[in-house]
């Protein structure tokens, strides 16, 4: 049976995959910009990293399927994400101990001397 969906241009090619990663990235971006909790922002950052890793693998799969360079890069991204989460979470814990909040809207001490109530 001929692939109707592929005939319609719906078979997932590289463009489809890339648009998907772009959409995931955009959602993460929205989260980074709007989350009030620092932890929420960190989760949104995980989304970004995930979509970036995914796009590496997509290119690997479609451009040079015989090699695994994209997958290696994805491994690195996962490792960096792990390191980032560890440090980020440690910072938030310390921050929380000092400020009793991880709300980014109140953590504007760059401008003001004290945390806004």
């Amino acid at each position: 049976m001929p692939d109707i969906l592929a005939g319609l241009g719906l078979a997932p090619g590289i463009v489809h995959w890339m648009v998907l990663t772009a959409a995931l990235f955009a959602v993460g971006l929205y989260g980074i910009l709007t989350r009030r909790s620092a932890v929420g922002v960190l989760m949104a950052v995980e989304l970004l990293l995930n979509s970036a890793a995914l796009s590496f693998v997509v290119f690997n799969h479609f451009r040079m399927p015989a090699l695994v360079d994209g997958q290696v890069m994805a491994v690195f991204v996962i490792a960096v994400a792990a390191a980032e989460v560890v440090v980020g979470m440690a910072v938030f814990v310390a921050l929380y101990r000092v400020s009793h909040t991880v709300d980014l809207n109140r953590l504007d001490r760059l401008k003001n001397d004290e945390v806004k109530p």
Partner: protein
Amino acid sequence: MSEGAVETILFYAIAAMSLFFAIATVTARRLLRAAVALMFVLVLSAGFYVMLAAEFLAGVQVLVYVGGIVVVIVFVIMLTSSVDLLEERPPLLRKALGALAAIGFFGTTAAVYLTTDFGAAADAAPPAESARAIGAALLDYGPHGYVVPFEVISLLLLAALVGGIAVARRSPPPSQPLTSGGDLPGEVSFTPPKRQNDPEGGASHA
């Protein structure tokens, strides 16, 4: 129904679920739910990796991301806020600007992808055992060898480990000033804000 059609349908289904959970991750007002949604996104990404013939990576994804990172995030959520605590809504203007930025980004990149000629998909057989291939690449050097980045990553992880411990550790009592973590009472001056939506009061979290 051909294998291609199944794959196509599977792609759209997973993509839709993935996007749904991604949006849930960034909009859920309960952080724990957001964490769970994030976990789903990551698991679904592992599915994508399988579809892209990267089975080893899918395993790593599940182990490291879901098993490690999400757990750490849940820990921190527990540490820094009450489970019942609803995150405050962001200001409307911030929401609008964030949405604008996100949509602008998506539009721009999607337009780039749609107008770019990627050429025909290369047709070659994937390596039989991707795990072996990845392992070889990580320890190899030369055009497709990554031993130096691998070692750098290992250093990074070590630094993150030490840094995480150093930063998150409780500040020592004033009798040990030399081991200060930088947050001695005298070094940080602020007044604890009155916390909202927290029936227990601030002292229990200090």
